[in-house]
């Protein structure tokens, strides 16, 4: 909790106490219980306040990053065809609405309209295009290849870079064309339902069809029924180069919904993961942390805490990114498919006024986020997740996501603090290997820090 109305967050994790300055994102460990005495805390707070700590400088420091829609990421979802039926998949919702499919001509037409839109708006930012976020890419891989070739042909005509990238596959069934493409491409992302044993076995077998040089990334939707995270990571890292676990965004009536009980279990599982990591020797630990993928939620918090990255936006959805569905209409991301109130028209009639109604553009515009001590690590709520829970887009809080984020945050702080004690070089080497800035070059002990400024 924030201490009364102060911009100071005091919390405990695994019996240890910490202080966070939410604005500068400096955190400290409190090693003496005496510091927690309210008078002592108030006194130390006042000392540091004189030097600008614990002050909310947001009004002057934050930049408004997205004043208008600047398309740089386009996802085209031509269909919802899949050879699996995962209960957490967001395309399930879409299947209830639409059975249309986009053909190759229509896909090319959408790409052309997107390019025309960028030119019309004098946008020179790079454009990345992907497909099949609502279906299985290997089923219509020939269409992907045709679009790939089409983009290769036309991209020389534009003065901004155009990239195409692959979505994750479930790797259940695919052609040799797909293998050949991936072997050249050098990267394979597999989305795995860990509770589906058949898929687990099939994926492990099928991975052998690709060259060893291909970087293999497992994207693992984390649900409330999963336990033993450390075992899951280590098991999958026997087959993949990196693993990203991230919580599923699901409605309340899902098979394994996020509830108070399941969130408590998740919290315990995260604590166990952290202690399992701390049992490793330094080299194993560093290697394990480096093997957590770019979209892993735990690593997201670890990286943001180490680099003190400040996020005033959650994601580019509806600001720089859009998804186009078989109805040709634009949505902020693939998660909103066919949800009328989130559609912002087509490339022909797009206007920024409509966009502002779809998603408010800045963390500061979300009143409840303003009070949250970890707001700058999170960047705000996921609108897709809120819509799955029938939370109005005008409300800022999704308590499930907020709870999950806080669990990730506290466990990350605890782990970083322990690593700092154990061997700070693990942290600096980790930052160096990841190419992130190491921003914890100050005493993490609160007493020492206060003493310096006293």
């Amino acid at each position: 909790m924030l201490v009364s109305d102060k911009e100071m967050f005091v919390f405990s994790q695994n019996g240890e106490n910490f202080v966070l300055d939410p604005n500068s994102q400096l955190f400290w460990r409190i090693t003496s219980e005496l510091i927690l005495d309210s008078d002592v805390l108030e006194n130390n707070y006042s000392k540091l306040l004189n030097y600008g700590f614990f002050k909310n400088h947001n009004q002057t420091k934050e930049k408004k990053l997205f004043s208008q829609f600047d398309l740089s990421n386009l996802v085209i979802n031509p269909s919802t065809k899949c050879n699996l039926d995962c209960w957490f998949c967001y395309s399930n919702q879409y299947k209830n609405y639409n059975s249309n499919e986009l053909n190759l001509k229509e896909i090319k037409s959408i790409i052309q309209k997107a390019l025309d839109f960028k030119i019309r708006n004098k946008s020179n930012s790079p454009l990345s295009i992907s497909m099949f976020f609502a279906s299985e890419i290997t089923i219509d891989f020939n269409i992907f290849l045709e679009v790939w070739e089409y983009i290769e042909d036309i991209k020389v005509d534009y003065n901004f870079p155009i990239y195409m990238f692959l979505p994750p596959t479930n790797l259940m069934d695919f052609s040799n064309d797909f293998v050949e493409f991936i072997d050249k491409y050098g990267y394979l992302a597999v989305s795995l339902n860990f509770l589906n044993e058949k898929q687990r076995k099939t994926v492990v077998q099928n991975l052998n069809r690709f060259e060893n040089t291909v970087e293999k990334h497992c994207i693992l939707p984390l649900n409330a029924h999963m336990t033993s995270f450390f075992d899951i990571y280590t098991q999958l890292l026997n087959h993949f180069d990196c693993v990203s676990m991230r919580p599923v965004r699901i409605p309340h009536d899902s098979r394994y919904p996020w509830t108070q009980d399941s969130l408590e279990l998740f919290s315990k599982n995260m604590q166990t993961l952290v202690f399992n990591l701390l049992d490793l020797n330094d080299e194993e630990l560093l290697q394990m942390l480096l093997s957590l993928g770019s979209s892993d939620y735990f690593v997201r918090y670890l990286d943001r805490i180490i680099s003190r990255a400040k996020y005033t936006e959650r994601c580019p959805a509806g600001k720089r990114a859009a998804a186009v569905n078989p109805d040709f209409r634009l949505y902020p991301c693939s998660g909103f498919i066919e949800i009328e109130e989130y559609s912002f028209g087509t490339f022909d009639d797009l206007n920024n006024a409509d966009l502002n109604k779809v998603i408010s553009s800045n963390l500061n515009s979300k009143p409840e986020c303003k009070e949250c001590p970890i707001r700058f690590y999170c960047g705000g709520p996921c609108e897709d997740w809120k819509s799955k829970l029938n939370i109005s887009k005008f409300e800022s809080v999704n308590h499930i996501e907020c709870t999950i984020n806080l669990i990730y945050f506290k466990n990350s702080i605890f782990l970083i603090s322990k690593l700092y004690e154990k061997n700070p070089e693990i942290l600096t080497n980790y930052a160096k290997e990841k190419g992130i800035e190491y921003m914890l070059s100050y005493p993490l002990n609160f007493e020492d820090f206060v003493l310096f400024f006293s």
Partner: protein
Amino acid sequence: MSDKEKCGDFEIFKDENGWWIVENSITNDIIGKFQNKEDALNEIASILQRVEDLSENESVC
């Protein structure tokens, strides 16, 4: 020269001419010279509070 006081990667000390020096002890770069210690401490506080505003730059969410 007075004893160096250390705050993580940063140190402050008083040099022979009476200036309070703020130094990065890792790179040995002199960050600034100040007439009084309070200003030197303020400089370190200011550096520590520097956080660039960032935004996510990937579609992975």
